[in-house]
């Protein structure tokens, strides 16, 4: 029970107010002072009028529009006071007191923010600026106009070296080789930089770098999570689909349409529909009904935040507390998915997926499993006979049955605990051999499953597959047992009104998701283009123009440059939703080319500490995957094989043995040197290095990775296997170089050492120098 604030301090002038004696009862520590709950202080009538984060608590004269009253009556949840309830008399007195107050001006004017957000971007013209020579494209005009307004100047252009490293890490996720760097720095072509951008955009490494951003957003994982954490053996086809889509520069609207309605829409792709299924899945859930509802809830929230930048998920139990998304809208949106069921669908491998190889490998692993099984059976039979003869028992002996059962134990460690016999020398070896064969069979089966021509996908549960689409109801409090009004599929009412959506004929399926994709993947709504343009910007600058990229709502960040965002959104649509066109535009701007230090740094940092006005380039720490791939690449050992089933990294033995429902079979060393995007994304077994360097937890959508600085990161990079192993190869790579120290710096940092650095390096072996260089801030941060 929380108590209402006792208004005693400093309210001499307020004591006459008829309202206050009521509030003076049992108010508690929640709504007072600077740390008041929800930002609402009840220290004075003024404070009540000003309100908290939900808006003004009090509208004098209008009790019905006063949040204070709406919360104590339970009209808004949670009902106040939390855990308790005011009696009817107190509520009536409160109401009367508010209504008797003189009416003030209207406070319920909609936030200006929403007026911008809910309107489609109109025609925007780049502003006129003074320092016109700096402007390379319209982006710069918008940014410069903002700076000039504050009397600020942009930073000078970064060095060629910094620029090349920047675009390499940004577009490919690995550093340039020393040869590329030297060539670029010496290139006299005035368009050398633009040409480098084009070259990198055409490089397949681009899809592998950018194809990692999207999985963060769609909570991509290759296992279910929860207890069993069952593998999703063919989910990787979605990952490869994303990589290919990026490399092909598939228009973003088509990319979205395929993921929402790849079975119904103009562009067909059943693998893309995996989008719906990447949330954690409790395979052994007790309530299948609830499991389905959880699926629907996940999808409803994810579609809203990923594509629309609206936190639709917040309206699951009640009206959205901040944004104009009524409770009912949530279920209208959910109704688009009512006819959807999860399904693994047979889908042939396409040419890019190397169908022949896939089929061959599938057969090979199946055959190996079959042979292994026969061998395991023979070994088990031999163990059985050995048991019978040494224990002198018959076939139907209980002890024998138990013994055979124990041979199914998941590992030798547990077996030896339950079966002392297994420790005896004459038993130990045959049992170990049997376990090895048996586990080998499991491994081959797993590998075969990963090569099956299946799509991790969805299908319709509506005509003609089923008689009708299930109805959708508003669920009060999100509770399956609290069905309210029946609703029809409809878009967000704040921009599309309350009419149900028109559902097109989709030939054999219900057309619901097609209708949704038609609205989402287009300029019919004011969100999609803006949200995506902001995401692209965020990946290049480290921060978006809206710094909460999946929440454009009232609680999200206010855009620093709304006109620029709108101009780019228009440009995005005009250029056929081409992501590569947006990269070109952004990377060739003078804004992006700025150095990370501004001559007026001190002044500017005081005025605008977070660089929202973009008076310099932001620093960015390498993502976990980029860091790992770069170290492998510098050691000369990054395996560039593209696509295919996931690679399993090595884990400590006790971890590998610790899983109840699966075994962990690491891939070959050569495979483990592939790019990080191809490492398995298993929810219960995260790559330790990725976990330490802020990779997403794979369970929720991650719109923006944090960059923490913690001691375990230092330990990983100083002592971890990756650094130490690759430093050895780095040393081998440098052997025989004329100036090994110089070349070492060029390989890692794209420049030669200073005299000081050379002096310090001379005291180290080349492998040690490699370790030091991999740990340098200059390596970890892109300027």
């Amino acid at each position, binding site marked *: 029970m929380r108590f209402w604030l006792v208004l005693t301090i400093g309210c001499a002038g307020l004591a006459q107010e008829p309202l206050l004696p009521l509030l003076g009862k049992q108010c508690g520590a929640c709504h007072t002072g600077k*740390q008041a709950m929800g930002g609402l202080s009840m220290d004075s009538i003024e404070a009540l009028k000003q309100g908290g984060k939900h808006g003004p608590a009090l509208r004098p004269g209008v009790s019905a529009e006063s949040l204070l009253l709406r919360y104590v009556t339970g009209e808004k949840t949670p009902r106040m006071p939390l855990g308790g309830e005011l009696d009817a008399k107190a509520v009536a007195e409160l109401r009367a007191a508010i209504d008797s107050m003189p009416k003030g001006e209207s406070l319920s004017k909609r936030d200006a923010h929403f007026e911008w957000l809910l309107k489609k971007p109109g025609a925007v013209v780049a502003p006129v600026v003074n320092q016109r020579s700096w402007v390379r494209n319209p982006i710069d005009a918008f940014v410069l106009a903002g700076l000039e307004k504050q009397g600020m100047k942009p930073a000078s252009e970064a060095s060629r070296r910094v620029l090349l490293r920047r675009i390499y890490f940004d577009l490919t996720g690995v550093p340039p080789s020393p040869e590329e760097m030297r060539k670029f720095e010496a290139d006299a072509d005035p368009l050398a930089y633009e040409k480098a951008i084009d070259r990198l955009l055409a490089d397949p490494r681009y899809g592998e770098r950018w194809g990692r951003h999207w999985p963060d957003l769609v909570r991509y994982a290759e296992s279910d999570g929860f207890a069993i954490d069952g593998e999703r053996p063919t989910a990787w086809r979605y990952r490869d689909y994303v990589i290919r889509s990026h490399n092909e520069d598939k228009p973003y609207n088509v990319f979205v349409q395929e993921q929402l309605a790849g079975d119904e829409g103009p562009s067909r792709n059943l693998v893309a529909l995996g989008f719906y299924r990447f949330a954690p899945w409790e395979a052994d859930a*007790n309530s299948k009904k609830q499991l389905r509802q959880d699926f629907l809830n996940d999808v409803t929230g994810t579609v809203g935040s990923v594509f629309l930048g609206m936190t639709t998920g917040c309206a699951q139990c009640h009206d959205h507390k901040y944004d104009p998304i009524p409770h009912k809208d949530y279920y209208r949106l959910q109704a688009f998915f009512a006819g959807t069921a999860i399904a693994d669908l047979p889908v042939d491998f396409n040419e890019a997926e190397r169908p022949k190889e896939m089929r061959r490998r599938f057969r090979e692993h199946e055959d190996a499993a079959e042979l292994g099984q026969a061998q395991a059976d023979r070994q088990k039979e031999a163990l059985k006979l050995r048991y019978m003869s040494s224990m002198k028992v018959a076939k139907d002996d209980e002890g024998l049955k138990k013994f055979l059962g124990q041979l199914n134990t998941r590992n030798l460690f547990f077996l030896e605990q339950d079966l002392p016999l297994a420790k005896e020398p004459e038993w130990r070896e045959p049992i170990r051999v049997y376990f090895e064969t048996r586990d080998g069979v499991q491994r081959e089966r797993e590998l075969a499953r990963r090569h099956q021509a299946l799509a991790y996908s969805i299908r319709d549960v509506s005509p003609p597959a089923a008689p009708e689409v299930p109805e959708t109801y508003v669920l009060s409090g999100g509770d399956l047992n609290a069905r309210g009004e029946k609703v029809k599929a409809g878009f967000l009412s704040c921009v599309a009104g309350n009419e149900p959506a028109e559902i097109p004929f989709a030939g054999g399926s219900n057309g619901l998701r097609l209708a949704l994709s038609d609205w989402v993947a287009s300029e019919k709504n004011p969100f999609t283009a803006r949200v995506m343009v902001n995401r692209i910007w965020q990946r290049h600058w480290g921060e978006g123009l809206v710094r909460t990229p999946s929440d454009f709502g009232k609680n999200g960040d206010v855009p620093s440059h709304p006109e620029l965002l709108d101009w780019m959104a228009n440009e995005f649509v005009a250029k056929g939703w081409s992501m590569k066109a947006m990269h070109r535009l952004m990377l060739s701007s003078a804004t992006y080319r700025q150095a990370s230090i501004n001559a007026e740094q001190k002044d500017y940092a005081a005025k605008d500490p977070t660089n929202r006005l973009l008076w310099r380039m932001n620093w960015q720490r390498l993502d976990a995957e980029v860091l790992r791939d770069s170290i492998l690449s510098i050691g000369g050992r990054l395996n560039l094989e593209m696509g295919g089933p996931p690679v399993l990294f090595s884990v400590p033995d006790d971890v590998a043995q610790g899983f109840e429902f699966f075994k962990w079979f690491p891939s070959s060393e050569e495979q483990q040197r592939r790019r990080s995007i191809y490492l398995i994304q298993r929810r219960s077994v995260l790559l330790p290095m990725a976990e330490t360097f802020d990779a997403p937890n794979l369970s929720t959508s991650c719109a923006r990775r944090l960059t923490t600085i913690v001691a375990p990161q230092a330990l990983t990079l100083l002592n971890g296997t990756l650094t130490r192993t690759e430093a050895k190869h780095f040393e081998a790579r440098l052997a025989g170089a004329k100036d090994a120290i110089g070349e070492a710096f060029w390989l890692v940092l794209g420049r030669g050492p200073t005299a000081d650095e050379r002096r310090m390096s001379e005291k180290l072996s080349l492998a040690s120098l490699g370790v030091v260089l991999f740990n340098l801030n200059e390596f970890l941060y892109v300027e």
Partner: protein
Amino acid sequence: MNRRQFTFGLSAAALSHLEAGTHHAAKADACIFLAMLGGVSQIDTFDPKPKLVDLDGKIMDWSKEKKTDQPNLFAKPRKFVASPFKFQKYGQSGREVSELLPHTAKMVDELAVCRSVQSDNGNHPAAVFQMNTGFIIPGNPSMGAWVTYGLGTGNQNLPAFVAMPDFRSIPFSGAQQWGSGYLPAEFQGTVLRATSEPIRDLASPGNVAPEAIKAEREALRGMNGSFAALRADYPDLRARMDSYELAYRMQLEVPRVLSIEAEPEQVKEAYGLNDPVTASFGRRCLMARKLVEAGVRFVEIFTPSQSWDAHGDIRKNHEKNARETDKPIAALLADLKQRGMLKKTLVVYMGEFGRTPDTPAEQKTPGRDHNTRCQSMWFAGGGMKGGSTIGTTDEIGHKAVENVYHMHDVHATILNQMGLSDMRLTYYFGGRNRRLTDLGGRLIQELIG
């Protein structure tokens, strides 16, 4: 400590979310959470049910129960099972404890027992998630992460939050049970192993000479130093250099803190380190004490995944698990008390749910199944009222009926003892302020001293 101190982790992103440290005076500086995975039977430990002796073997009628924890198991006929363990009164408080926990029983005057904690989901993974993160779905910060986020670290050279799973069988979803969810990664638990390398990559590689390691360190310092000097406006560069210094200190400090070999023989004996049955849990309990002594905020020790899950044979299963944990836990309490640390250290003992009073009728050896309607858990130290008990279950021990509390309430109470208000400890994510206790928990006031 009133302000958060960020030594283990620093980041601009995290600093911007900082509040002022404690919300009120803390009763406990540290918490040791003993996670009894699988679910301990309340009927066989702290909540005696003599009625079950009369009912033993009789068929239980579940037809009126709309929602059971395990529909498949409850669909068939079920029979009552009396506890195979005898209860006896212990201590000055005269609280009843079963013979299953002879050592813990001797410490009963330190325990504040709640026999009426309920939870939301009768499936292990969901329930373990709720015990650790407040929610039955993955993706949320663990309680240790919340505490660290709220209070910062209390030491200079060690992680603030340490998790010690049993590697024979790690908890479901592994690291997510001590993960930081949507909080910054610096608040995630650090796994400590009871092996030669307690923290991953802590030790310098053995095949590199110590002088070479030293030379590397100096070169790194030197080169990073001149780089940062020219870019003084970017604080992360300096912060990262500091994190390396912390890492070097950890390399010295962690082995020192955790060197158990140097402990007196009677301490090792008390924690059960000389007996292979108790050694694993005992070692971790002793490490927990040493960590808390060194200023670690939150330590969580796990039994093997599903270890207490006594479906098949309540006697055999619980005897095995009690043997592994009872003695070390009692030793931990006694040790903390003897050192005067118990007052400021909150110890919590609980599983993800309780167990049923009955078993499928067809079963030869009686077991007990999952029960979210009640479990017995206890607090000790940290300002809790030792020797007290709260909560009543019905006469068969199936359901809490009086002073019913929820998992959120346990979390709210833990936070409260550590000086944090569960309502005010929030983090903005995905469109709203999130909490460990979702919409808030209720303090288990009766047990607070």
